């Protein structure tokens, strides 16, 4: 009993620590107290039930019910009967709360600091994980498996790229080890394969999971993935922190450990905006390549900007001190607005690509005087794209799919009713940022066509380079000159106004050249880490874009997301791509099914063992111990004869337990129809008593030997 309590406490601690992994996403104050109440109620009821029934799953079920009742009392007291018991209106209140929570998660950036809905979701997740872990670790005597539900809790911050406290991780792992240590058993007892009951249990588990999944899947699919994933990443090798310009769209993004690269003071990150080191204009269809960098001019004492600043409204200068601690390249980091530099070295400015080159080492400090342009939607709407530009800025790679991409771009723009260049760019940006269409992912699917952009439009998974490149190519098909800027996100403000940027802030974004104002940044990469789009290019304010997003958001996301690209694929004979996608989908489903059956059969075997079908195996287990005592346990000896021999070596209590066990074995083997059988709990208790007794005797013997 006491061991069970310790095990339960360990499972509880493990679950709560694992839940704390979410603390960077949702502030603990929001959910911890209420979750504690619900999980505590579940644990209490499960433990009480466990002392009453030997069943493995029933107490956990009871615990789940208790946890749900507690959550109804904590989250919906107004709907609950006597402010505790759930009523039908509790369920409808919960059903209302969940979409609210998803909406909140989509509309805000972590960590979330408030919200009943989000807290309710977290509580439910933690409750289910706890009940599963409790059932596996305590009910099923399968403590190692209890790591699985914990993994689902850890998967959330891992998938979202949110930082996790090493202390919490270590403590949770320690609790997990404690659970295993307490609940692990001598597995030798279960060497033989159990028969029918295992198969039955396997089928039962598999069937219930399948039924549950088929019921839940349609519900879940209606709910879009709550948070657009945008992990921290870098575009650079591990040894140096150079930004490498071999920007291949086919490569997976390799993320290294975050290293602080530079910091700056004097302005808020939102004001500074992303800082670029390079810009590139030439795209081959799968890679960005550096072209001619143009002529360099001296940079001292001038406002550095690639185009004329006549007639451009400039704000008041903002002085920024940049402190580069670790940057293995010769390009200085520049904000995307007109600026002048003060650098303790010779600096050359490359106007064509808007880059500043300094002959400096890894460490340098320099000052930037920023002159932000006043850009707003109203003004930009009036502007036309720059004419008479370098043709490379309008070049669309001839991959055979450029017409398809152009068609899609025109369709997007037409759907949005966008007429001005600015509205067209907004439509493209919104199209790419739509979470029901595109998913941020650092791993890139294998090429299907020579055109990486077309592949991305079909696969709909990629990171900032794919998003930015796609917007650039589409803009170029519409006659808008655009290029790619490569650099870093502005970082986050730390203590004392110092903003530290690390390698994971590396980023790439499109720039479009407008007549008069020059290069303007857009932000097609969705998600939390890319930050909000520029103020002049907001996500949802443009009335035209609402038309595009309105249609898909009412339908199923899967259907909506496949609509646009496949409608254009149909007339280009792209059916093979669809087929192969179907095939890989089936393969994944098959593998998932096999994995499910495997897990279910493992659990089923474990449950079957617990259902006492293996009295014989328990007896064999006892025999192995008796053998160590020096008792002859050859197959020709009857249980009774063995027990009679062993009784001489054991305490009366142990001998009595052994006698009971022998009677149970005899009844099971030689009186199969006997109805009055010993219960599993009794048998288990006798087995433990005998094993412990034999161990004690063996210990005494070895002590005696040492004593002599």
């Amino acid at each position, binding site marked *: 009993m006491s061991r069970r309590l310790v095990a339960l406490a360990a499972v509880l601690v493990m679950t709560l620590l694992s839940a704390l992994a979410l603390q960077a996403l949702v502030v603990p104050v929001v959910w911890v107290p209420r979750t504690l109440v619900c999980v505590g109620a579940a644990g209490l009821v499960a433990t009480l039930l466990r002392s009453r029934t030997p069943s493995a799953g029933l107490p956990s079920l009871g615990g789940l019910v208790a946890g749900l009742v507690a959550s109804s009392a904590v989250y919906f007291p107004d709907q609950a009967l006597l402010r505790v018991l759930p009523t039908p209106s509790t369920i409808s209140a919960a059903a209302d709360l969940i979409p609210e929570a998803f909406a909140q998660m989509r509309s805000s950036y972590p960590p979330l600091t408030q919200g009943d809905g989000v807290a309710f979701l977290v509580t439910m997740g933690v409750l289910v994980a706890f009940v599963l872990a409790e059932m596996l670790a305590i009910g099923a005597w399968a403590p190692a498996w209890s790591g699985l539900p914990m993994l689902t809790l850890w998967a959330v911050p891992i998938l979202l790229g949110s930082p996790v406290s090493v202390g919490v991780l270590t403590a949770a792992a320690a609790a997990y080890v404690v659970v295993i240590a307490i609940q692990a058993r001598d597995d030798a007892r279960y060497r033989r394969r159990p028969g029918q009951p295992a198969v039955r249990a396997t089928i039962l588990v598999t069937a219930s999971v399948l039924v549950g999944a088929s019921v839940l899947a349609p519900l879940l699919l209606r709910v879009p993935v709550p948070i657009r994933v945008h992990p921290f990443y870098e575009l650079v090798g591990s040894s140096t922190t150079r930004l490498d310009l071999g920007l291949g769209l086919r490569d997976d993004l390799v993320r290294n450990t975050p290293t602080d690269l530079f910091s700056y003071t004097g302005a808020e990150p939102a004001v500074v905006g992303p800082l670029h080191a390079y810009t590139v204009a030439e795209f081959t269809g799968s890679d960005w390549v550096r072209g001619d960098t143009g002529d360099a001019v001296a940079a001292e004492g001038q406002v550095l900007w690639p185009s004329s600043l006549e007639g451009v409204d400039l704000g008041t200068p903002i002085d920024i001190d940049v402190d580069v601690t670790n940057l293995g390249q010769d390009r200085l980091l520049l904000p995307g607005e007109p600026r002048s530099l003060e650098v303790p070295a010779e600096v050359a400015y490359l106007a064509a690509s808007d880059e500043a080159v300094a002959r400096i080492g890894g460490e340098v400090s320099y000052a930037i005087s920023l002159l932000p342009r006043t850009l707003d939607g109203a003004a930009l709407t009036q502007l036309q794209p720059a004419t008479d530009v370098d043709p490379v800025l309008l070049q669309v790679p001839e991959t055979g799919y450029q017409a398809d991409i152009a068609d899609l771009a025109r369709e997007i723009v037409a759907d949005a009713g966008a007429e001005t260049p600015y509205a067209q760019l907004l439509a493209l940006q919104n199209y790419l940022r739509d979470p029901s269409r595109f998913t941020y992912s650092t791993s890139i699917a294998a090429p299907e066509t020579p055109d990486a952009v077309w592949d991305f439009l079909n696969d709909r998974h990629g990171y900032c380079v794919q998003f930015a490149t796609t917007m650039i190519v589409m803009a170029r098909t519409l006659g808008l000159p655009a290029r790619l800027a490569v650099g870093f996100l502005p970082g986050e403000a730390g203590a004392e106004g110092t903003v530290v940027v690390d390698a994971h802030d590396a980023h790439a974004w499109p720039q479009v050249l407008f007549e008069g104002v020059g290069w303007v940044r857009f932000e097609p990469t969705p998600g939390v880490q890319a930050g909000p789009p520029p103020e002049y290019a907001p996500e949802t304010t443009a009335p035209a874009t609402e038309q595009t997003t309105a249609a898909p958001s009412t339908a199923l996301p899967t259907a909506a997301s496949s609509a646009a690209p496949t409608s254009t694929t149909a007339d280009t004979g792209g059916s093979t791509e669809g087929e192969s996608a179907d095939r890989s989908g089936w393969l994944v489903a098959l593998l998932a099914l096999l994995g499910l059956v495997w897990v279910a059969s493992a659990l089923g075997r474990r449950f079957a063992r617990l259902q006492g079908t293996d009295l*014989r195996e328990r*007896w064999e287990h006892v025999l192995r111990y008796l053998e160590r005592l020096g008792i002859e346990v*050859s*197959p*020709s*000896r*009857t249980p*009774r*004869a063995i027990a009679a021999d062993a009784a001489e070596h054991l305490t009366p209590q142990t001998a009595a337990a052994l006698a*009971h066990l022998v*009677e*149970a*074995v*005899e*009844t099971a*083997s*030689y*009186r*199969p*129809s*006997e109805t*009055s059988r*010993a219960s599993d709990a009794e048998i288990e208790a006798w087995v433990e008593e005998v094993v412990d007794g034999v161990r004690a005797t063996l210990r005494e013997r070895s002590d005696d030997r040492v004593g002599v």
Partner: protein
Amino acid sequence: MTQGTPTSTGSATLAQLLQESLSRALRGRKDVVRTTAAVFLARGHLLLEDVPGVGKTTLARALAASVEGTVGRVQFTPDLLPSDLTGVTIYRQESGSFQFHPGPLFATIVIADEINRASPKTQSALLECMQEHQVTVDGTSHPLPEPFMVIATQNPIEMEGTYPLPEAQRDRFMAQVSIGYPPADSELELLAAGGWAPAQTTPVLSQAEALELMAHVDLVFVSDAVRRYVLGLVRATREHDAVELGASPRAGLQLVALARSTAVLSGRDFVLPDDVQEVLVPVLAHRLALTRSARSGGTAPAEVLAEILRSTPVPR
């Protein structure tokens, strides 16, 4: 764990009483007493191989007294005739009819003392009665009383002028045991008491109860596993190198029957391999004919059986 029906519990108690009653009469030989009681309950017959004066008659008388039965005692001699056992039909002049005079066989317990001294003809007559539970004289069948049990004795020392029972005849005895000399303390007690005291034995169950108990023994459960174990043991005697003639199928039947009554004596309503092991030597030892070389090597049937027990796995 073997709580059976109330009836079986009662049967177990009665069987225990019988066993205790016999133990009081023949002190110090619990195993012999147990086998005797078990053979009686299994409706078998017992062969005692003993020197004179160890309490054979006492045991038989105690058994008879315990079940309110009668004792018939026949001292077998070479000139004993079958009719001396069965009884004769005599013409009654007064009534003008033949009247049957029952012989000593008409008793609950029949002691056939030194059975190997009678002629084979008389022996086979006795064995036939044991099998049939009836006596046929002058074409008329006379059923023997129920319960009916023959306890035959053989003197293993004085073999001259005897007619040892052939194997086929021995097969009809369910079990053979030796009482042997009593342990020292029991013998001292015996000396102090001035003799065995069968007269003190009071009935512990009526004949009707005894028959009921026998009927209950037939209901004792024998699992397939145990039956297979019996079969394995019996067949092993036929394949053993030292055995010329192994156990017959009847031996297997009697092994199961005796194991059943032993289970009842242990208060169980189902047979364990332990029961089979317990009765294996009494049931099979006298039926095995060992090879000449085994006999000259001094091997006893009991040793062969112990070896077979060691090599036959118990069903689990």
